[in-house]
């Protein structure tokens, strides 16, 4: 169940801070007071960056609403009855493409891209958005990596073998007519796993989700962790990325004992100690928390990073807020601890 975070539209950072009440945040760490002050500042900045139409742009300097920023910010501010969230949810529904998908940004072509998964997640608890969500879920079920087609599968199995992967295990692409990649597949798994029943034309959801999970396992780097989806290219092992690894682990939250997940968790826990980039660190916190790891010290590290509120990237601000309240964020992503 969502706790209320914000129920106001701040006019300035100071008024935002004064209006926020203490019980809205429960960060149980030694540095709880300073963490809370930082978080209040980040939330106020996030709130200030909301565009009049309801969305959020990807960068502070931009006025073009981005779907990724809008979905993550909607989840971050997370109160069902605040004006901001209501405006954001209405904006998301308005932006849906006729085919049920969502565009990457306001004004984009109407084909639909990977952010459809995030929109489905962001609208989970909105009763008026049920038809929109259903249309999005149906679109996700039809949307698949190009290797799902027998011809391309045959090509990857016979003629084009420079990138090591099993084309029989496909997931979701970033954009139509391309291959499956780790991050869009992970988000699609999270979105489809939230669907309460496999009925009404959605009977194949468990099959697609299982296939997506197999694809993630197949695309892992040899020593654990994930990058975009190229574990081995021309015989060379490529290094994993913290954020891609974290997002994949989030989607594999109910596969903790799998050897690939174990190796990836170990790699991510080690890497987390040296991370100073807020986006990667925030995803790392969510991923480790989803597998029951202690994340208190990492949250303290995250909140101690310099000038978080001044970060140009709006998705990063939203992620910081989600990581700081990881149990609520995980619930929003459909992860039950």
């Amino acid at each position, binding site marked *: 169940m969502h706790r209320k975070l914000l129920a106001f539209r701040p006019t300035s950072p100071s008024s935002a801070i004064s209006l926020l009440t203490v019980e809205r945040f429960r960060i149980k760490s030694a540095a709880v007071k300073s963490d809370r002050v930082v978080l209040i500042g980040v939330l106020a900045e996030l709130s200030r960056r909301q565009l009049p139409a309801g969305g959020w*742009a*990807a*960068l502070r*300097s*931009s*006025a*073009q609403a*981005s779907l*990724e920023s809008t979905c993550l910010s909607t989840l971050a501010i997370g109160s069902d009855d605040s004006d901001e969230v209501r405006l954001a949810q209405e904006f998301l529904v308005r932006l849906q493409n006729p085919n049920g998908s969502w565009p*990457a*940004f306001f*004004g*984009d072509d109407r084909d639909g*891209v*990977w952010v459809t998964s995030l929109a489905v997640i962001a609208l989970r608890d909105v009763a008026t958005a049920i038809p929109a969500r259903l249309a999005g879920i149906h679109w996700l079920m039809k949307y698949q990596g*190009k290797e799902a087609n027998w011809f391309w599968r045959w090509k990857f199995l016979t003629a084009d073998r*420079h990138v090591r992967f099993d084309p029989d295990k496909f997931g979701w*692409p*970033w*954009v139509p*007519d*391309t*291959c499956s*990649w780790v*991050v*869009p597949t992970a988000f699609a798994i999270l979105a489809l796993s939230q669907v309460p029943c496999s009925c009404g034309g959605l009977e194949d959801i468990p099959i697609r989700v299982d296939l997506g999970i197999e694809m993630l396992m197949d695309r892992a780097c040899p020593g654990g962790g994930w*990058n*975009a989806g*190229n574990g081995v*290219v*021309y*015989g*060379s*092992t*490529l*290094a994993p*990325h*913290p*954020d*891609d690894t974290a997002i994949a682990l989030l989607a594999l939250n109910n596969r903790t004992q799998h050897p690939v997940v174990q190796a990836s968790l170990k790699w991510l826990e080690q890497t987390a100690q040296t*991370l*100073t*980039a*807020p*986006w*990667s660190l925030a995803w790392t916190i969510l991923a480790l928390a989803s597998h029951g790891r202690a994340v208190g010290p990492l949250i303290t590290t995250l909140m101690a990073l310099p000038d978080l509120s001044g*970060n*140009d*990237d709006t*998705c*990063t601000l939203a992620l910081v807020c989600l990581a700081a309240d990881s149990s609520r964020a995980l619930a929003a992503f459909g992860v039950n601890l």
Partner: protein
Amino acid sequence: MILNRRNFLVGTAALAAGASVSVPFFLPKYHADRRAKRSRVAILNVEQYVQRIDELLGSGLRLFRMNIQGKTVVLKPNLVDYMPGSAINTHPLIVLAAAQAYRSLGAKSVLVAEGPGHQRDTQLVLSQSGYADLLRNFAIPFVDLNRDELIYTRLRASYMGMKSLWLPRTVLEADFLVSIPKIKAHHWAGATLSMKNMLGTVPGARYGWPKNILHWRGIQESILDVCATIPVHFVIVDGIIAMEGNGPLSGTARPLGKIVLADDPVAADATCARLMGFEPDRILHIREGAKFLGNVSPSLIDQVGEALTPPTTPFDVVPEFRHLHGV
């Protein structure tokens, strides 16, 4: 055969049908010929990444007549990912030196812009590869092209079969765009130089990480369409430590000791290809680029600075590109 009215009509119809099928193959795939009559390329010998790169670069840029006064200069380095000890990215000292040089030439503003193709966390790449501190200390703004505001843009060439792309406002509105690549062998394109570097402007937030649509449409073809659409005004190539073999990520560092400057991206890439021991005409995007974007022939390139000496041992490449080595 008797030429009667019926045969004449049938023959004319056959000719028209044949022409309609074959003509598109012979028509140019670009909208405009942007080649300069002559191009200028400077090769500088620089053995190491040291602080005095700014002096060397400053003096190198004076070999070109550039009017930068009052212009917005966008520097586009090559930042893909970070792996400790590898030569993946353009060295930050070269970008810093370029920023200082353009500021001293009177630029209204100088900013660095890039959209890494493999790593989503741009701030992590900036931090790990040494950019973040330098940009902050010298107050040089950075724009993440993967997440910049996008403008619907009709492509000015049709090699990859797409009519348009969404491209970042920052590069489209730049008065003066400088491509600052690293010299690397590339397992899909043969070499990644100033033209290939421009694929970093294609936004990940719209097309994904990696920008897989470009792979499906053809890397060489995508390079041509993007370079036809986003004019590169100047090139500064980091060839001090280059990469050979399985580039752009997993190759081997190769000390080359060169910085290449050019007022023409095709001439720059042709010169770099020669420095790598490659035949530039055998790299498709350079060969096609010579038809409308710039010059490849040494007779059309004014070579200044150091002499162009091909290496004794050419750069190693993956087997599919061994033909680049020539005879």
